[in-house]
């Protein structure tokens, strides 16, 4: 019981901090926090695919990119944000479903390589199809949407907009992994043959895990484009996929809170390390390597090891 109270108190504290934070930060700080929220959404998606359903995907950057480009292209041509957002997320969901088919044929590292190739192909298309994406010049002047007549143009307001999305996505993910679907995902990860023999349609759930993860990537991209207001292909290269993978694994793959913690490490930590000036990315890399050496299950795995040394939590309840 007291555990539950503690958890609720901690959650309230974090929520209060996130709500109050914009008033304590300069515009750049607010921008970084917004980036954290947007990247958390993409990482939550990857955590569904990788952490719960156990399918290694390096395609998440492509979905963030597709979501961002769809939103940018349509909103700069006068479409309302909500429609573009839905189109982007749906497109990613559909492409993710299709990309899931290779996952039915190949597993583990081979799947990682297929999705890696997919990300790089999509990146090449962003860079070279100038008539559509603007090529290396990208798309500029992406407007931010109005919500109920209130413009989200100021950075602080847009931060709350992203935060609200993160809250919605979190609630949906929380519900999903406790639903029979979430259980089925874990079953597919832990033992696909056994899951199949118990009547779980592993084929459908594998595709679904891919599609849902991709859809969340699309939502993340749809929020990212108006956040930076200018997109070009470079942020959506393989590096972002690797970075998102890093977020999920460093945070703790298969833990509900893993993506949030991982996004803190990947988005905020480099900024905090800026006092080391030219060395900040090096310091970041060393910290990541050291963390993996000390605790391969990620930060939340470390927390769990400290809190309850010998008990084994059920995967989906973590």
């Amino acid at each position, binding site marked *: 019981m007291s555990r539950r109270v503690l958890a609720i108190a901690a959650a309230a504290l974090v929520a209060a901090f996130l709500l109050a934070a914009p008033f304590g930060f300069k515009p750049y700080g607010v921008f970084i926090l917004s980036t954290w929220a947007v990247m958390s959404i993409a990482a939550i998606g990857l955590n569904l695919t990788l952490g719960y359903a156990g399918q290694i995907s390096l395609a998440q950057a492509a979905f963030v990119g597709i979501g961002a480009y769809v939103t940018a292209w349509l909103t700069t041509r006068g479409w309302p944000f909500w429609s573009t957002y839905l189109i982007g997320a749906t497109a990613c969901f559909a492409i993710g479903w299709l990309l899931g088919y*290779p996952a039915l044929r190949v597993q583990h590292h081979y799947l990682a*390589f297929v999705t890696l*190739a997919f990300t790089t*192909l999509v990146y*090449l298309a962003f860079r070279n199809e100038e008539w559509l994406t603007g090529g290396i010049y990208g798309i500029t002047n992406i407007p931010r949407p109005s919500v109920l007549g209130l413009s989200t143009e100021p950075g602080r307001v847009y931060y709350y907009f992203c935060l609200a999305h993160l809250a919605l996505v979190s609630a949906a993910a929380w519900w999903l992994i406790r639903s029979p679907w979430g259980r089925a995902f874990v079953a597919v990860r832990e033992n696909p043959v056994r899951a199949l023999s118990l009547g779980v349609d592993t084929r459908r759930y594998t595709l679904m895990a891919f599609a849902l993860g991709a859809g969340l990537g699309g939502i993340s991209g749809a929020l990212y484009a108006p956040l930076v207001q200018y997109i070009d292909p470079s942020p959506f290269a393989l590096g972002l996929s690797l970075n998102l993978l890093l977020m999920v694994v460093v945070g703790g*793959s298969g833990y509900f809170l893993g993506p949030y913690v991982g996004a803190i490490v990947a988005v905020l930590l480099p900024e905090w390390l800026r006092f080391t000036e030219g060395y900040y990315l*090096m310091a970041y890399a*060393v910290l990541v390597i050291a963390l993996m050496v000390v605790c391969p299950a990620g930060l939340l795995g470390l927390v769990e090891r400290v809190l309850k040394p010998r008990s084994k939590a059920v995967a989906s309840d973590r």
Partner: protein
Amino acid sequence: MLADILQLLVAGLATGAIYALVAIGFTLLWQTSQTINFAQGEFVMLPAFFILIAMGHFGLSFWPAVGVATLVSIVTLGLLFKRLIVDPMIRHGVLPLVIATIGLAILMKEAIREFYGADAQPFPPLAADDNVTILGVSFSLQNIVIVAIGIAAVAALQLFLNRTRTGRCMQATAQNPTVARLLGIPVERMILYTFLINAALVMLASVLITPIYLAKFTNGEWLGLYAFIAAIVGGFNQVRGAIVGGILLGVVDNFAAAYISSQYRLALPLLILILVILFRPQGLVGRVEERTV
């Protein structure tokens, strides 16, 4: 026309030989220790800078600098990489190690940018910038030297793996570590040897490729990707797979750049990669890997 094709073929074989060297190292690490090294490209980028530092800061001439750099590479990219990063993580599956090597790649890139500079540095070539005319077609001497060295290195490696006791012990370790251990093979030492061989291979690749593309801290990004594709297309679990994959990739890449589109030159290898994985996941010449359920 025919002359063009022959020239492209030789250029393709030259780059292909280099990709093959890097890909062989990649597959060796995978076979013996299930290490997917995402820093493999950076492993090729770095030794060129060891040489430049040995020449620039310690005033060595080229060949002694190569000697020193080889030693430094084998110690850092072979021994230290295994002891400090791979050993502590190997028990925890593939993923943590993948993340750690991604971190390592960032570290190497940033270290070179910070301590050496972001500009592309010229690098002394192995052969004079000359052309050789064979049967009326002129070929770049440099490409021919690269192909020759590549063939020699691969042949030496194959001889070592197939004809020496240590080499066979290494193969046994790769195929079945448990049985190898039962037969009294020092499995740990064999794994260490593969890391040392990998370090030597990337060193060689670095010396061969850097004169063509100049020494730059970002070189590893695409080199790693190509080695990766070569290894998988050929067959992830076979040394000869990496050779076939590397050469195929080099040739395809050069022809695609010349005849299809230079913007999409990377797209063709990627498409080949996807098709191979979907329809022949064991690679063109690889053997089927047993799946763990």
